[in-house]
């Protein structure tokens, strides 16, 4: 019956139809309204909630989330609109005429309190035994309304079994308040759609296709639903106990690598405003916790740039210079495991476009159990590798059966930013006050190129810095001011850039055995694109399918999460566009201070290629350890 298969979210869960003009004042689209007898003017189409927020009038919300389309289901935000019999949900009511609104009338207050009492009556569990204690929107509402007992009773037995089948996301529907944020995140924000309300009335719950465990449906593990759950109904699969056990085991050499995004956000878990980078403080904390070595994932990101960049040049060489017909172009990035699984499920025919290069996390894992134990003289069987990631899908990625090229499980545990903050707190450390320290050798401090992997467009920028320098022989600073490739930065869902290659240089020694010259690239316009959030990825992929603009691209960066890694499913809660913007600012600000800002200039990386990956990028050693294969999953779980 559904006519347009591209539109998966129902109309009831769509954004408001009334579009707000960019220049409402100029075109006379301002509406003069009264809120609590105060006269204000708002652009036509503003919701009551937005109008109140702009005027510093607090409206409690629960099902509303700034990133998501409206639902209007919790009814906590109801207000009185003069002339209407019933109360209206502030979040979903667009102002189109001069209404008079009351936000604190007795009717409103009573209704909100009753609704809150109803929600609490069905919300199983106790706050102190909950992962979201002190960061729970339902708890905050209860506090706001001074709830000191349960007016309509309180459920005393769990109704649902906790689903911890997934490596990434644990679902405890006993704590669910049916706000449907996860449903909307999945189907509307990400256009994946594994969660939906099942049954009706009292029996309603959020479930999966045929009630299968989450591990057995086409969940891409992005964890965006976790970031938007107002309660503890969704949380990541937490490996803290195992990691503590490994740390406490004197036999084990426990290594932690830290991705670029957690350091830009972990301060939020300690009460700091978003946008404070705590790289050095975090390193110190990790050592105090008891990790034996602290490495920077950005080093592996530099390695990824080398491998993925070389692969791109090889693909282009084969396709453009040698005219081989079966080379898949554009090349897609493969750092985001959520994106990789999305592609495997939804566009399995495209997997040959994915770069075979592993993600930085997994590249590092393979090195940490091969190269590292060799130079350190440790038995790799005793090495435990932990990766602190902004990501839920990384927990799945490290458990992929392919990720054992070292002969061991390359990465033992994926740890989210939230979980690491928890470990730091458990260790009795207040992170923001710690002294700073650097990363351990032999990998040391990485380049700025690796750091910006954390923001959408960062992988593209890092790769372009290296590829353009290698190809043109020119300094990137001569092409882009301060080496900042602005066209691929920003938060627009899909970005497209064209970079003409006007001159080419000599092929650098490190890849000269692969590509004899760059003459074939001269005069070519390099077309690249960046997409973040799988809904945007879907648009790009559909365009490629239809032979559109993006099918002529050479290289496309995809990130599963809105904002890229800094908005990942393992990052501190809450999230919204403003918070993600501040995290990005923190990353770019730190990047400008670093000595090296191009992956191929990383001295430790050059050493690695000289001593270990001796046949260069995309050579046989790196192919064994640093590259991988993908699975055409389709609708099936393989």
């Amino acid at each position, binding site marked *: 019956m559904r*006519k347009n298969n591209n539109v998966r979210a129902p*109309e*009831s869960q769509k954004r408001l*139809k009334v579009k707000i003009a960019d220049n409402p004042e100029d075109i006379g689209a301002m509406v003069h309204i009264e809120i609590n007898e105060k006269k204000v003017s708002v652009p036509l189409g503003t919701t009551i909630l937005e109008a109140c927020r702009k005027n510093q009038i607090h409206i409690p919300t629960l099902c509303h989330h700034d990133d998501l389309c409206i639902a209007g289901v919790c009814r906590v935000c109801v207000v009185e609109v003069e002339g209407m019999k019933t109360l209206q949900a502030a979040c979903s009511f667009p102002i189109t005429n001069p209404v008079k609104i009351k936000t604190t009338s007795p009717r409103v207050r009573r*209704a909100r309190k009753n*609704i809150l009492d109803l929600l609490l009556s069905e919300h199983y569990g106790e706050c102190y035994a909950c992962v979201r204690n002190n960061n729970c929107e339902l708890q905050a509402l209860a506090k706001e309304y001074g709830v000191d007992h349960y007016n309509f009773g309180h459920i005393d037995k769990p109704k649902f079994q906790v689903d911890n089948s997934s490596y990434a996301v644990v679902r405890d529907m006993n704590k669910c308040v049916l706000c449907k944020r996860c449903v909307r995140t999945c189907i509307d924000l990400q256009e994946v759609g594994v969660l939906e*309300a099942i049954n009706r*009335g*009292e029996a309603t719950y959020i479930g999966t296709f045929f009630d299968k465990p989450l591990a057995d449906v086409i969940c891409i593990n992005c964890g965006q639903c976790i970031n938007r759950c107002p309660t503890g109904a969704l949380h990541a699969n937490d490996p803290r106990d195992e990691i503590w056990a490994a740390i406490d085991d004197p036999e084990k050499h426990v290594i932690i690598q830290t991705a670029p995004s957690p350091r830009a956000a972990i301060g939020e878990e300690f009460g700091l405003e978003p946008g404070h980078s705590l790289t050095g403080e975090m390193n110190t904390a990790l050592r105090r916790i008891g990790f034996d070595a602290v490495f920077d994932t950005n080093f592996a990101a530099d390695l990824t740039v080398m491998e993925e960049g070389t692969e791109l040049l090889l693909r282009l060489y084969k396709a453009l210079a040698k005219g081989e017909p079966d080379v898949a172009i554009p090349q897609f990035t493969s750092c985001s495991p959520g994106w990789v699984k999305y592609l495997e499920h939804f566009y399995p025919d495209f997997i040959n476009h994915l770069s075979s290069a592993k993600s930085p996390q997994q590249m590092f894992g393979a090195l940490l159990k091969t190269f590292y134990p060799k130079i350190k003289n440790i038995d790799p069987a005793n090495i435990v590798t932990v990766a602190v990631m902004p990501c839920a899908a990384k927990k799945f990625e490290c458990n992929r059966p392919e990720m054992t090229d070292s002969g061991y499980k390359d990465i033992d545990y994926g740890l989210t930013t939230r979980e690491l903050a928890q470990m730091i707190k458990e260790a009795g450390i207040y992170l923001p006050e710690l002294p700073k320290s650097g990363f351990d050798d032999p990998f040391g401090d990485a380049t700025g190129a690796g750091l910006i992997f954390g923001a959408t467009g960062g992988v593209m920028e890092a790769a372009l810095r290296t590829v353009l320098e290698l190809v043109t022989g020119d300094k990137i600073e001569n092409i882009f001011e301060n080496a900042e490739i602005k066209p691929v930065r920003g938060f627009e869902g899909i970005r497209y850039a064209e970079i003409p290659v006007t001159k080419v240089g000599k092929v650098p020694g490190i890849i000269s055995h692969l590509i004899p010259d760059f003459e074939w690239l001269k005069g070519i316009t390099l077309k690249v694109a960046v997409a973040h959030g799988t809904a945007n990825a879907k648009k790009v992929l559909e365009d490629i399918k239809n032979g559109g603009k993006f099918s002529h691209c050479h290289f496309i960066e995809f990130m599963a999460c809105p904002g890229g890694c800094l908005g990942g499913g393992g990052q501190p809660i809450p999230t919204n566009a403003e918070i993600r913007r501040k995290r990005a600012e923190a990353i770019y600000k730190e990047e400008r201070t670093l000595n090296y800002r191009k992956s191929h200039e990383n001295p430790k990386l050059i050493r690695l290629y000289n001593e270990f990956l001796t046949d260069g990028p995309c050579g046989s050693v790196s192919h064994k350890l640093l590259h991988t294969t993908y699975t055409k999953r389709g609708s099936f779980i393989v």
Partner: protein
Amino acid sequence: MEGVKHNRFGPVIFSKYERGSAIERALAMSREDILFELKNSGLKGRGGAGFPTSTKWMLTAAAISDKKYLICNADEGEPGTFKDRVLLIEYPELVFDAMVVGGYTIGATEGIVYLRGEYEYLLDSLNDYLNGMRKDNLLGENILGKKGFNFDIRIFLGEGSYVCGEETALIESLEGHRGEARNRPPYPVNTGFMGKPTCVNNVETLATISHIIVKGSEWYKNFGTSKSKGTKLFSISGDCEKPGVYELEWGMKISDVLKLVGAKDTKAVQIGGASGVCLNSSQFDRTLAYEDVPTGGSIIIFNKKRSMLKVLKNFMEFFVEESCGQCTPCRIGNVKLLEAVKMIEENKLTFGYLKKLKELAETMKIASKCGLGQSSPNPFLSIIENFKEEIFNYAGGGEYAKE
């Protein structure tokens, strides 16, 4: 279809009507004139909410869009209502003719009948009837020679959810989604089926329109009261000798209706189906009209042998099951009201808690997302209020509460 036709008598809907005559008449009129006739008739939606039909049509007609829809709401799901079934079986010409008229007036090219899942057995005969209309150019292209007026009707079978009678939930269901009410505004007249302007009318509303178009609004206004024009179909069931569908003028006293259907020893009358109100004998001199007791037409009669607590429990069980589950007040609120009924049965309900529940019921009425939750507390409030002696004076809810 002719064979099942009963001898029914009524001043408007059941009066004489010739198939196609409303279409013929309407196509000779301007759209503005049709809208004026409707406005002048004062016809209100017969599904229960009583929204002025002319306003709905005008708003849809005024909406600018390449495509518009007219939907006939035949999801007759209110307990105790069966008038639409009678119309569809015995008077399909009234319903479908008015849909064509509506299509012409509002500029829709497609009409959809959302037929209640349980009425599947009507599907074949209704489709046959539509084919007959197509043959006679009452449907299809250039209807009755009117150049450029194309309109066709298809029938969509519902899946049996009560809430899908709510127009936006109906549209969601029609689009293939869960039957859940949408946020309003925007209203379907602007953003309806597939995001296009959509007018949703009840079966009976449409049937009445056919007569108004042919016989004029002035004629129609002869019936009813000053504020409630015309007639209404009543589905009367329960403890009476002659249950069935009656066409009555607005303004009739409840006691007269009871007399008409041969109800004896009547203790209670539930008006407006499960979501309506329950009146006791002291209120039987009230009149059925928008200004007094408005109703979608369901009247359920209970005699002295019935336990009102059981009646209430039955209604609340219905709502607990039929709430779509999306909004908090309806999903959990109905459960709490049902729990209270069970507490009364067990003699555990305190008056303090009852007071809280009444407040909750008020919250449900004003804060629920759609008409379901806004009206489901009605039976609770009215039965508890109108039959409190029976319910509270006897242990556990009265002499008939326990078998």
